[in-house]
């Protein structure tokens, strides 16, 4: 029983940064913008988040700074890809390269420094319940925030007028524009939201997951978040499922190795990616409920051209 609980806790921690970053990218892509710079925004968020927490001693300020840094990074993207209508794919890739370099520069001063990691909740009585207590009432705030975030995004996208308009921009920016909606402004806000989420996801790593800063510590999680959005076929519910599935497969394959299950570790390390590919193939074959990519995703929009 204890082991099961330990595995669930590891899965929660491993999935959380993926879920936060992917939630942000989901909103960005639903507005019709493909921002491939998630990894870059994450890694800058990690550097600034750690720096903030290290200088002030506050995890909260660190998280906030991570979000601000991610947002600023996304504004560079918005300026290029939306303002100047530069190719989104190229701009996103450039953003990642810029972010990796920038994070090394920002973080150079506090490599090897230590902080007290984010506190885990403790509610006497509730947290002590065996098996579910630690999971439901004993994790750090990021874990619960990530779930609140995705529920909020679901509610926003499907239950509010603003969400409807945002989705309209992603599906047909010309019509949305003709109806009088400020497509570029809406998209800029969506990109900024995505940046803030990526920054927060990055900050989660040095603030809670492995409480120290090292350049390159996101190790490709931004790319996994991007894949998760496609995996989820741009739907919040499936995104939660995908993020936890990915986290679970990652952690379980480590445990399987420890138990000596005779499957090559290279294969097991590839499992999460393999699962993504299989689900993508199944989705693309499904007639209904399949891929629901925003129709205008990645296309440049210049008003009144």
């Amino acid at each position, binding site marked *: 029983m204890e082991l099961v609980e330990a595995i669930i806790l*590891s899965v929660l921690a491993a999935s959380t940064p993926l879920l936060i970053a992917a939630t942000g990218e989901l909103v960005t892509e639903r507005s019709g913008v493909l921002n491939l710079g998630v990894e870059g925004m994450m890694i800058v968020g990690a550097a600034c988040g750690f720096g903030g927490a290290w200088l002030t001693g506050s995890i909260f300020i660190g998280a906030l700074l991570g979000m601000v840094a991610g947002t600023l990074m996304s504004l560079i993207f918005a300026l290029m890809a939306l303002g100047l209508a530069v190719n989104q794919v190229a701009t996103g890739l450039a953003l990642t390269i810029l972010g990796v370099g920038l994070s090394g520069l920002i973080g150079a001063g506090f*490599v090897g420094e230590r902080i007290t990691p984010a506190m885990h909740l403790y509610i006497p009585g509730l947290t002590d319940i065996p098996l579910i207590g630690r999971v439901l009432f004993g994790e750090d705030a990021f874990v619960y925030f990530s779930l609140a975030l995705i529920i909020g995004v679901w509610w926003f996208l499907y239950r509010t007028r603003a969400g409807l308009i945002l989705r309209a921009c992603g599906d047909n920016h010309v019509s949305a524009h003709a109806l009088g909606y400020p497509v570029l402004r809406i998209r800029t806000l969506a990109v900024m939201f995505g940046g803030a989420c990526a920054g927060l996801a990055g900050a989660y790593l040095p603030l809670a997951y492995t409480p*120290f800063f090292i350049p390159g*510590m996101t190790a490709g999680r931004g790319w996994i978040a991007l894949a998760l959005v496609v995996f989820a076929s741009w739907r919040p519910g499936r995104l939660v499922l995908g993020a936890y599935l990915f986290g679970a497969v990652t952690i379980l394959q480590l*445990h399987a*190795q420890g138990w000596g299950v*005779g499957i*090559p*570790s290279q294969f097991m390390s590839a499992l999460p990616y393999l699962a993504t590919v299989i689900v993508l193939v199944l989705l693309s074959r499904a007639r209904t409920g399949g891929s629901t990519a925003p129709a205008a995703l990645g296309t440049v929009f210049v008003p009144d051209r």
Partner: protein
Amino acid sequence: MRKSLLALAAGLLLAGSISAASAADKLKVGFIYLGPIGDLGWTYQHELARQALVKEYGDKIETTYLENVPEGPDAERAIEQLVRAGNKLIFTTSFGYMDPTLKVAKKYPNVHFEHATGYKRDKNMSTYSSKWYQGRYIQGLIAAKMSKSGVLGYIGSFPIPEVVSGINATMLAAQTINPNIKVKIIWANTWFDPGKEADAAKALIDQGADVIMQHTDSPAAMQIASERGKFAFGQDSEMIKFGPKTQLTSILDTWAPYYIARVKAELDGTWKSEDVWGGLDSHMFAMAPYTNMPDDVKKIAEDAQAAISAGKLHPFKCPVVGQDGKEIECKGGANLADGQILGMNFYVKGIDDKLPGK
């Protein structure tokens, strides 16, 4: 007009020759790094050695480094870039740079190359590496002494000979203390991913391991062990900062003496292609202070270190018994031959796991 043009051309020629002359005075030394210099592990140690070079030779040399260079086609371009920039001695510091280095070396016979941890050489390309398995043997002794559960946790990067020989050396040493010792092995399939390294450490501890050993590059595993009140060993660098009560010792890559010697050879004009595989005796690596252990354990470790340095103790002393219970053919007389260790692709008896790809 023509006069002024001529004067300009002459001036340019002069300027050119001056800069060429000053460049000729200085030996340009280039470095290619796999990770960021701030990784606190592998790349950081090479960077420390570069800084030691600068300190040693000052104005006589000029050093350049390129960090975060991925292994593969990009590496070739990066190495060639260093050549074009006038570097005469180039250190390529990761196994995966082997083929790219060789390719560039063949193209530029007048430039000297030093490749870390590879096995391909040429007239102008040397290789150098350390006998880390010696350090792993000492760690195995300490681990078996310190473990209460009798289960060690080992985080591997990739199942390559360098890592496999480390696991085997650890196990052979541990068995001399506790014949029933168990080791749980998790392959991270990455050299550097702090999150995944932390997860692997958590999994090992959750499954009962109480001493964590790693052959990946970040201090994440040390930090998890520290959090859970277990023991761990650092990797490449001093990592005691991340586990003041956790780190037992660490293998420290001390490249500086070798780098200083090679630059000296280059300056003297005596550089030639070599295959250097140094151990504790030649100070290619060192052991961090033995901490967080009782005095008797410390003594065992120090005695083993002295014996290995003096050549009296060899971790792979024959007979070495493989996993299938059969003796490994002993090609080196009293010990396994260097080639057998450098190409090790089997587990020794007592490791209850399957080597990936076997």
